[in-house]
């Protein structure tokens, strides 16, 4: 009972802060900005928050954090828009949404896809907010149990599962994962500082830029493919059937949304990589348990609902380590910590007790912000879908220009633009070879973390590899990975899979 009363008194304190007119105003400004930058390909929340940081100097601390947080989760809503409409994920988390979302758009179902994404995100955001309010401190303790060995096993599981992202050949998907892993090797070795595959460019010392890679292999490649043959160019607007999901759509999205929310909430808490994994993991789970896995990659609504719920839940719960420990789970959280310091607040375990109105105000504002986002995004769907009617002679150059501005803004570095061009070409070649870019992206994201944690775990255990199976959490994760492998290659399952492909052929 005590916990419940405490929660209510905390939440009422929070809503008291969050509902102040000035805070509501800046919360709205934040989510609006977030949606806009999310929609503009390439411009991510990190760059936007960095640019807006100085403006918040003169705000009250709560107001400033509420606005910055709004930008972050607002971008999660907006990011799915371009992924669905033009196959251009601005962030790793929406790369998965592009797989089925874009196919839905090509079938004239951009409206339902966008509505699914918005509704799923809203649900997930609301649940994750309650989760933060209820369990933030105990969840942090669990996250801290994750050492290098556990992370390694988690990444292993992620990689094994990533093959399920492919809708075509398993072999090609494996190949893509490996290319992704190799691309992830570029840069300074964390342990020794040795340069790997940087070919003398200091610009490559920190590795290839994720945004440049994603924009290139997804967006630019898609534009190139569309330029191939004038008569083949896709005019999607012809086939737009309805803007709102049908009854069947709603039925189909409920369970995936719930599962995606649960997965995203759990993985989002883990500092570093957790939130990235969540959308990939949610998609994989849906495809695994679906009775009709062959629909995935061809416009399955579950393939939009699950990862979108997962990434929004993950975005929300990634605030937990930041709020309770002052530890950033990703670059955006690092900026939030910077914002707190500039405001004279020492981020860390004491924020909740020393500044309860700020702590709970921020949490309450997340729910208000999510409500604003769904109200903002649903009416916009019609507008976004009409965007597809813009002639491609205007749309394509505009997309390329925005991509370049976005990529340049990350590090103010022209080198990243050459990278976009190179990856655009690579992406085009891959499209021609029927290879899908999503597993490549996952390999690229997970590879460096896998290596880093493997070496770190081995360093701490002084070269003893049993550490991965003697630590219970790590052993469990590895077991699940093995189980997934077995299921993938079990004769019965393979037969079913082959059958599926024959049906298609």
């Amino acid at each position, binding site marked *: 009972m005590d916990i419940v009363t405490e929660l209510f008194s905390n939440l009422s304190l929070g809503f008291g802060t969050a509902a102040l007119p000035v805070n509501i105003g800046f919360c709205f400004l934040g989510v609006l900005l977030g949606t806009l930058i999310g929609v503009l390909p390439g411009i991510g929340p*990190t760059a936007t*928050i*960095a640019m807006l*940081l*100085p403006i918040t*100097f003169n705000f009250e601390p709560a107001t400033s954090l509420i606005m910055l947080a709004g930008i972050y989760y607002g971008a999660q809503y907006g990011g799915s828009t371009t992924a669905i409409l033009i196959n251009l994920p601005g962030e790793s988390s929406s790369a998965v949404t592009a797989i089925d979302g874009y196919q839905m758009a090509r079938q004239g179902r951009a409206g339902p896809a966008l509505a699914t994404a918005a509704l799923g995100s809203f649900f997930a955001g609301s649940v994750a907010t309650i989760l933060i309010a209820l369990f933030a401190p105990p969840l942090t303790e669990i996250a*801290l*149990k*994750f*050492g*290098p060995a556990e992370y390694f096993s988690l990444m292993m599981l992620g990689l094994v599962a990533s093959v399920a992202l492919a809708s075509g050949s398993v072999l090609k998907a494996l190949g893509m994962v490996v290319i992704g892993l190799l691309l992830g090797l570029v840069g*300074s070795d*964390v*342990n*020794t*500082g*040795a*340069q790997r595959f940087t070919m003398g460019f*200091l*610009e490559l*010392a*920190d590795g290839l830029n994720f945004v440049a890679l994603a924009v290139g292999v997804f967006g630019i490649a898609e534009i190139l493919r569309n330029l191939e043959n004038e008569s083949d160019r896709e005019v999607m607007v012809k086939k737009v059937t309805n803007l709102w999901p049908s009854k069947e759509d709603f039925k189909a999205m409920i369970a995936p949304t719930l599962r995606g929310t649960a997965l995203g909430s759990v993985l989002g808490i883990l*500092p*570093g990589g957790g939130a990235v994994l969540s959308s990939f993991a949610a998609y994989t789970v849906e495809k695994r348990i679906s009775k009709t896995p062959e629909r995935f990659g061809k416009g399955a609504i579950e393939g939009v609902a699950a990862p979108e719920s997962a990434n929004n839940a993950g975005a929300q719960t990634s605030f937990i*380590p930041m709020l309770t*420990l*002052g*530890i*950033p789970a990703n*670059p955006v959280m*690092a*900026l*939030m*910590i*910077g*914002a707190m*310091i*500039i405001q*004279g*607040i*020492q*981020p*860390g*375990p*004491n924020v909740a007790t020393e500044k309860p109105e700020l702590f709970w105000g921020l949490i309450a504002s997340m729910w208000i912000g999510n409500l604003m986002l769904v109200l903002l995004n649903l009416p916009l769907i019609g507008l976004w879908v009409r965007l597809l009617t813009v002639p491609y002679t205007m749309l394509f150059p505009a997309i390329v220009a925005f991509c370049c501005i976005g990529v340049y803004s990350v*590090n*103010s*570095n022209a080198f990243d633009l050459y990278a976009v061009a190179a990856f655009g070409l690579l992406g085009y070649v891959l499209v021609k070879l029927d290879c899908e870019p999503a597993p490549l992206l996952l390999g690229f994201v997970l590879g460096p973390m896998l290596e*880093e944690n493997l070496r*770190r775990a081995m*360093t*701490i255990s*002084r070269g003893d590899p049993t550490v991965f199976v003697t630590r219970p959490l790590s052993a469990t994760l590895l077991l699940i990975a093995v189980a997934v492998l077995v299921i993938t290659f079990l004769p019965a399952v393979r037969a079913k899979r082959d059958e599926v492909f024959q049906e298609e052929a």
Partner: protein
Amino acid sequence: MLKVMAAAVAAFGVLAGSAVADTYPSRPITLVVPFSAGGPTDTVSRLVAEAMGKDLGQQIVIENVGGAGGTLGAGRVAKSDPDGYTLLLHHIGMATSVPLYRKLPYDTLNAFEYVGLVTEVPMTIVGRGSLEPTDLKSLIDYVKTNKDTVTYANAGVGSASHLCGLLFMSRLETPLTTVPYKGAGPAMTDLVGGQVDFICDQTTNTTSQIRAGKIKAYAATVKERLASLPDIPTAAEAGLPDFNLTVWHGMYAPKGTSPEIVAKLTAALQKALKDPNVVKRFADLGTTPSTEAEATPDALKAKLVSEIERWTPVIKAAGVYAD
């Protein structure tokens, strides 16, 4: 004749220079921070830039040019027009990059004009909450007896925590297992989680965890106790004399920037460092602004030269390179 011409040219130069300096700054100034936004150096830069901008009557815009341990951003400024509109705020890495990088894209001692020191952020030696030793002396004994199992975390090659670790090991003459991380955040996560044993890092990263009792603090690497953490002994008090180490930050302009402009910047920096808001925010970060005597071109140059001399042998002896 030549002398006359030279004098004329010099006079013209001075005139032109002062004419430019009179109107300087007439547009916003870019301050390059060679690290990503949100980190300690970025925070320090933004606080100083805001105060300096008010004094100069022009906004100072921060541009984060991260990568390669700060050398990309420094290289960008080294190649910029020396017109006073592109400045650099860099930390101790300006000195340690000299031995760490075999191919620096600029000549550290000849590519910049010096505006002044900004702040020296103290460092603290801290251990996981469950680490047995309670003071620095027993920590040193513990480290020596358990040198095969003790792990020292750092935030990557060339980071402040890496440098402090090198110095600590060379003083103890005990090589330890080092666990590198990509940045101070993940390293602190694992220290709080008890995955690694100890680290020596900036107060900006450690203060809140120390205050919350999540980690153990053994010593501060400065001559006098910290106002923000008065219970922590200095390294000398705790039994490790002359173990002074700060992450000093300085402001630079490209070589050839006119002395008048540099003087204006130095004056604005000195004023900014006395701004009550800057002093207060720096205190929250566990540091203090440099004094007026330190916030001068000469003091910064002397610091840079002495730090290059100090760190080159330590880094060379460890045999580490960042490229």
